[in-house]
């Protein structure tokens, strides 16, 4: 019985750590989609950049891949965010002035190219063999790492929530709701979009770095690009797009549902077990359609400001202008 309990506990820690990492990525998508209306379906690409940067910066020197700089955990996170942000900047430069569909298609293209490059250019990340031996910070104990991840999640939440409530966040919402209106109010739409896109992508890179240190191994196929991206979208929409609490809640709920479907498909007869992943994707795809049809605002809908603002808040708005 005690063995069962400790097994259960370690599974719980595993589940919570991944849910918290997804929470970080879901917050990142909320900055881009929830707050600004930017449609990024290349999440897996930025996630992969973050994971590889963490691997290259923190592992000891190795001839089989780039670097092995042997720097500490924190340096890996910084580089992961910086490189993801830089790539996002160039993607934004090309696409943010265009229609939203084009951004969607461009982000898919970028994440596909990132995967192709990582797979074919052996000198960067050892090709399909990937990079192993990425250590956890402080201690190998999964509980310690869970604490680290929860700390990063909390920090990200407070930073993003603060950004949302700031004048900057209000401009993002304004241009999401009414682009021409925001432009007429003298806001440089392109600049605000770029800032939101780069910030969101940096946080996605951060999520990727956390993942690399947790699993200890990165490879081009480790990310299942389509599922990772899709799952984050389901998380944000289920939780409540535009609401940061919702983004985190959605990540935990959907991750538990997603992991639960695995327990379900493991009950299938042996002949069908290989088909389990297809069945799980089918279930989550149907879940998304049901949410979109029945509760498009999510579990925790976005808090809308009251119409007819009080004199105090309108004076505040004038101060910012």
């Amino acid at each position, binding site marked *: 019985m005690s063995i069962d309990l400790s097994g259960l506990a370690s599974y719980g820690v595993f589940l919570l750590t991944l849910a918290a990492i997804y929470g970080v990525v879901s917050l990142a998508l909320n900055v881009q989609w929830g707050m600004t*209306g930017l*449609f990024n*379906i290349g999440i897996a690409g930025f996630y992969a950049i973050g994971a590889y940067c963490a691997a290259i910066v923190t592992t000891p020197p190795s001839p089989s891949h780039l670097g092995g700089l042997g720097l500490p955990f924190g340096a890996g996170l910084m580089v992961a965010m910086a490189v993801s942000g830089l790539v996002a900047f160039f993607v934004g430069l*090309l*696409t943010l002035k*265009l229609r*939203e*569909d*084009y951004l*969607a*298609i*461009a982000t*898919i*293209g970028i994440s*596909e*190219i990132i995967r*192709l490059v990582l*797979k*074919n250019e052996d000198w960067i990340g050892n090709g399909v063999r990937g990079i192993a031996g990425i250590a956890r910070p402080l201690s190998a104990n999964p509980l310690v790492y869970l604490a680290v991840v929860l700390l990063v999640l909390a920090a990200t939440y407070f930073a993003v929530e603060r950004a949302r409530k700031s004048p900057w966040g209000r401009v993002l919402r304004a241009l999401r709701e009414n682009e021409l209106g925001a432009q007429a109010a003298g806001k440089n739409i392109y600049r605000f979009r770029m800032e939101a896109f780069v910030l969101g992508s940096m946080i996605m890179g951060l999520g990727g770095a956390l993942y690399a240190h947790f699993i200890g191994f990165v490879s081009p196929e480790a990310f299942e690009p*389509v599922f990772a991206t*899709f799952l984050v*979208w*389901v998380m944000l*929409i289920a939780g409540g797009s535009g609401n940061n609490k919702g983004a985190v809640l959605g990540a935990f709920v959907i991750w538990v549902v997603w992991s639960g479907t695995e327990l379900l498909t493991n009950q299938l007869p042996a002949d069908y077990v*290989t*088909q389990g992943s*297809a*069945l799980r*994707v*089918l279930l*989550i*795809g*149907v879940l*998304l*359609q049901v949410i*979109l*049809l029945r509760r*498009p605002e999510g579990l925790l809908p976005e808090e809308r400001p009251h119409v007819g603002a009080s004199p105090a808040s309108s004076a505040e708005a004038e101060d910012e202008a």
Partner: protein
Amino acid sequence: MDVTDLLQLAIYGVVLGSILTLGAIGVSLLFGILRFSNFAHGDIMTLGAYAAFAVVSTLHAPVWLALPVGMIAGALVSVAADQLVYRRLRRTQPVILLISSFGMALIIRSLVQLVWGPQDRSFVKGIDMPMHFGDLMVSPQQLWILGGTIVIVIAVHLFLTRTRMGKAMRAMSDNMDLARVTGIDAEKVIVWTWALGGALAAAAGVFLALDTRLTPMMGWSALLPIFAAAILGGFGKPYGAIVGGMIIGVASEMSTAVLPPAYKPATAFAVMVIMLVVKPNGLLGARR
């Protein structure tokens, strides 16, 4: 790498271009009328290919007979997806439709995998000897693909220019409000557009499977070059899709002369990005 090799690559490019063209016409038509990029289009291709494969493998019918069955399956599933889900989401922003179609893509792909399994399949058993024209080689399948595409494109052209429904589609694509005022039944046109787009996607899927193999991922992998072709031709312009498909197809195959073949999708993407920067409305597009 001499002239013959380049010509050979150009031939492969035209074959790939035919497949992309059929996919891109559907994407373009749907965009013109519903104003959203259908991310399930690639997986409708996969579904059409597998439906045709079912006919070939169970009834031992020839592929050209199975093609219409695949096209009907593609049309039916597209219309069903519209009636069950998209129709109810149409009043929201087009981007919600886009997310929904992304989920639909995964639903269709997992269904295909559940029914037919994850392994590769093939229409043709063994290897058909390619035909030689001087130093150039063309396989019989590739000739079928070219011929089939020409027939289908002419049929689509006649449909769009000679029939009431085709004209209504073009009218709605040009100006939705004006079309409604003239008494066009918008709902009916939308259903027909889904049917036509789904059938064309399925045909593209059958041809792609004929040229390569059937896998559950085949359509999704083709989606990026198809979007590239549709953007190149100008979204919402079915005739532009033909030009776009050919350019992307030939460029992708020609790129293998200098780059590893693994980067073919990257070439399509690069051409698309250059296009977006230089002429965002597409080669044949002037509006918007």
